[in-house]
């Protein structure tokens, strides 16, 4: 097992990792920027190293972080999420410096980071992907043919690209002709290659992801799903498990597909396979090669500490569980308490927490680096706490969430708490039958 782990992150996830290390008897090194000096992760770590002024870039500065690990004799680095967590180059540098990167191999990160390559690999591995062309379409004729096979609406995507450029939606043959020309031109301009491929546009899906654990001895298990459909501009706000509309059969099928995906990437560690789910059909979207913000949902449902498992796997231990040992008990919902004003378009609302009083009692877990009088710096993301509630069924979890959100006292800044209290009264949310379109529709 490791002697000392450097945590290349900040905020609640840094604290979460420190907690796991302390419980494993491993020393910790926090890194921090000048504005994060008073953050709890600095307070609770055994050692700490200042790595820069108050910028987000400091936590992405691989040489500084490697140096910090070297001067403190850390033998492993946990990247958390964001920052360097899915940076294949960083994983490689760690390996060269003989510091264990707690995460999958650089190769697995790269493969899953390239969306077109990942899609191909998944098709090859037998993981369902969104119906569409296998490769780039040769021209309009082929595009129309594929569109007819899979049905409109369809989405054109640049094979080499990402980030929205070279993407176009079409609902008819006529529209497709125009969209193809535009997408090809955009793709050529942006990525130097005009190749585009075509996929069915899933209009009102659920975003359902499967948690994976894979050790370095070839054992891969899944820990069930999380329904993360409550999103605003692709930012998840609420996550729950079990997914209210999933049955055992579908859960088994999606779990098996996720395991296939992980095996195809020769994955090691904790990872998440994201699927779109519509009408009981599910399609691979992407794999996140890191621990996720919403990992506590799975921890509370299964009783398994995912951060500890990550560390154990990275140190070469075998998984202590088989698939049949994994039990799901009760119902868990997570809420991201962000310093954002839901009445002003979720504008970030940094500042001083004049009061910060968290709820307690049965079935309530709080993951937070905040405290009364803490000043939220404007340099980083706006999440100040995660509230995770567990009930013996969804109804109890929902009532408990209501109760806990009511108890939460945050003064000095605006948060997403009132927004969640509204969601908890929404019929559609209460039915469980909501999609990624929920937040948008909810605001209309």
């Amino acid at each position, binding site marked *: 097992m490791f002697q000392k782990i450097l945590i290349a992150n900040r905020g609640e996830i840094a604290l979460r990792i420190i907690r796991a290390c302390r419980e494993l008897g491993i020393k910790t090194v926090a890194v921090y920027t000048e504005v994060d*000096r*008073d953050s709890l992760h*600095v307070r609770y770590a055994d050692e700490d190293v200042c790595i820069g002024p108050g910028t987000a870039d400091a936590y992405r500065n691989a040489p500084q972080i490697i140096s910090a690990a070297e001067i403190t004799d850390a033998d492993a680095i946990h990247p958390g999420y964001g920052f360097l967590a899915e940076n294949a180059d960083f994983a490689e540098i760690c390996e060269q410096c003989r510091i264990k990167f707690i995460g999958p191999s650089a190769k697995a990160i790269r493969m899953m980071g390239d969306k077109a390559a990942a899609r191909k690999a998944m098709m090859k591995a037998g993981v369902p992907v969104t119906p569409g062309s296998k490769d780039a379409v040769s021209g309009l004729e082929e595009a129309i043919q594929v569109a007819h096979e899979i049905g409109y609406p369809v989405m054109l995507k640049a094979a080499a690209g990402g980030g929205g450029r070279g993407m176009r939606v079409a609902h008819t043959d006529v529209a497709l002709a125009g969209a193809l020309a535009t997408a090809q031109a955009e793709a050529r301009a942006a990525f130097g290659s005009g190749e585009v491929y075509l996929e069915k546009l899933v209009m009102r899906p659920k975003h359902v992801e499967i948690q994976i654990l894979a050790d370095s001895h070839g054992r891969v298990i899944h820990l069930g799903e999380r329904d993360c459909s409550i999103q605003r501009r692709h930012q998840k706000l609420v996550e729950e498990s079990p997914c209210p509309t999933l049955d055992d059969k579908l859960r088994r099928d999606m779990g098996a597909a996720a395991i296939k995906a992980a095996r195809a990437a020769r994955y090691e560690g904790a990872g998440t396979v994201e699927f779109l789910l519509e009408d009981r059909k599910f399609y691979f979207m992407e794999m996140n090669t890191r621990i996720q913000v919403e990992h506590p949902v799975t921890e509370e449902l299964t009783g398994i500490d995912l951060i500890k498992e990550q560390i154990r796997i990275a140190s070469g231990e075998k998984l202590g569980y088989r698939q049949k040992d994994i039990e799901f008990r009760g119902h868990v919902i997570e809420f991201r308490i962000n310093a954002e004003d839901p009445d002003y378009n979720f504008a970030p609302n940094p500042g001083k927490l004049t009061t910060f009083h968290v709820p307690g009692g049965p079935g309530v877990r709080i993951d937070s680096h905040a405290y009364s009088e*803490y000043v939220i710096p404007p340099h980083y993301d706006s999440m100040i706490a995660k509230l995770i509630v567990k009930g013996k069924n969804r109804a109890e979890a929902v009532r408990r969430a209501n109760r806990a959100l009511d108890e939460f006292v945050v003064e000095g800044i605006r948060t997403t708490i009132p927004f969640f209290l509204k969601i908890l009264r929404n019929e559609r949310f209460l039915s469980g039958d909501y999609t990624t379109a929920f937040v948008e529709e909810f605001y209309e």
Partner: protein
Amino acid sequence: MDLDVIRELIQLMKEHQIAELDWQREGNHIRLKSAAVAGPPAPLPAAQPLALPPATQAEGAPDAGTAGEAPREEGIVITSPIVGMFYRSPSPEKPPFVEIGDAVDENTVLCIIEAMKVMNEIKAEAVGTVQRILVENGQPVEYGQPLFVLTPPGA
């Protein structure tokens, strides 16, 4: 850590007019606050007490040094721009780049900080005389940690 160490620490504090000392090492933790050099009694924290005492300010220096902790030095303070190991000479058998009393200018190399096997020369980037050297050879330094104090010309 034992009493002798504490005695020595106290002696060091006295000699160098250190007001507070906080040291953690492998389960040991010691914190000392001097009354002698506490200076003029702080003109009152009108400010409210921090609910949670800030980690570094209250508890003092982290293992690898005291980044950013306001060095109340008279003179020009040269801080570390990076994290790494501090070396006073280009190689073990060579003499130090500078000694106390040496005159330096913008281009004088003061030390090397090794980060990821790369030797980074740190230049003075100011004109003056080396007044104090704050870090021991071969010690790790953080970002922002004070390394040298220069006396400006004419001071």
